[in-house]
């Protein structure tokens, strides 16, 4: 079965540093998403992306966050200046319209 791949699986960074989380969605999918899950809490929607632009974003997705599809296959989440509270598991997902989301295995981000 096709799958969403994410790299790296773990990322450790210092507070204030920029991080880029990378995702390769399933090739024929058109919608791309980032979700996050803080340890012990529920999975939270961050942003959805369609047709090379953000289609929806949550309150969590503030000016520190940005997404990009730089080359037609990768989908990235950038956090400009990381904070301690950004520590979480970040999941990328992709889908075709009105169908289930396929999730990647996640990137565990630890901000020290």
């Amino acid at each position, binding site marked *: 079965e096709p799958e969403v791949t994410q790299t790296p699986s773990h990322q450790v960074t210092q507070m204030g540093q920029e991080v880029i989380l990378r995702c390769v969605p399933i090739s024929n999918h058109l919608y791309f998403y980032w979700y996050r899950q803080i340890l012990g809490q*529920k*999975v939270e*929607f961050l942003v*959805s992306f369609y047709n090379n632009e953000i289609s929806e974003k949550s309150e969590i997705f503030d000016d520190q966050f940005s997404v990009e599809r730089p080359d037609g296959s990768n989908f990235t989440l950038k956090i400009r200046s990381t904070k301690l509270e950004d520590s979480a598991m970040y999941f990328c997902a992709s*889908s075709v319209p009105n169908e289930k989301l396929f999730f*990647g295995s996640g990137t565990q981000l630890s901000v020290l």
Partner: protein
Amino acid sequence: EDKVVQSPLSLVVHEGDTVTLNCSYEVTNFRSLLWYKQEKKAPTFLFMLTSSGIEKKSGRLSSILDKKELFSILNITATQTGDSAIYLCAVEGQTGANNLFFGTGTRLTVIP
């Protein structure tokens, strides 16, 4: 505010038992309800429900949606230790783009 509530929060059963997991929701412009299983990292898809009263079944798992009472149940019969996981209920609401609003999950532990 959109809300998805799952119960119980955790459940411990013996192999062979049958379990019922509950999910109630309040979502603007409901489109669909999805169940995911989260073992180690990535939530893996189980069911997508859009219509009331139609049971979806996959092996020992089944699920049904009640759009009038705004809830869904996930049943697992003859549980096995491999069913141990967090079961996530997510609802797609608002406007399009498959954005999911997750509940906190039910942690199921099946002991031999």
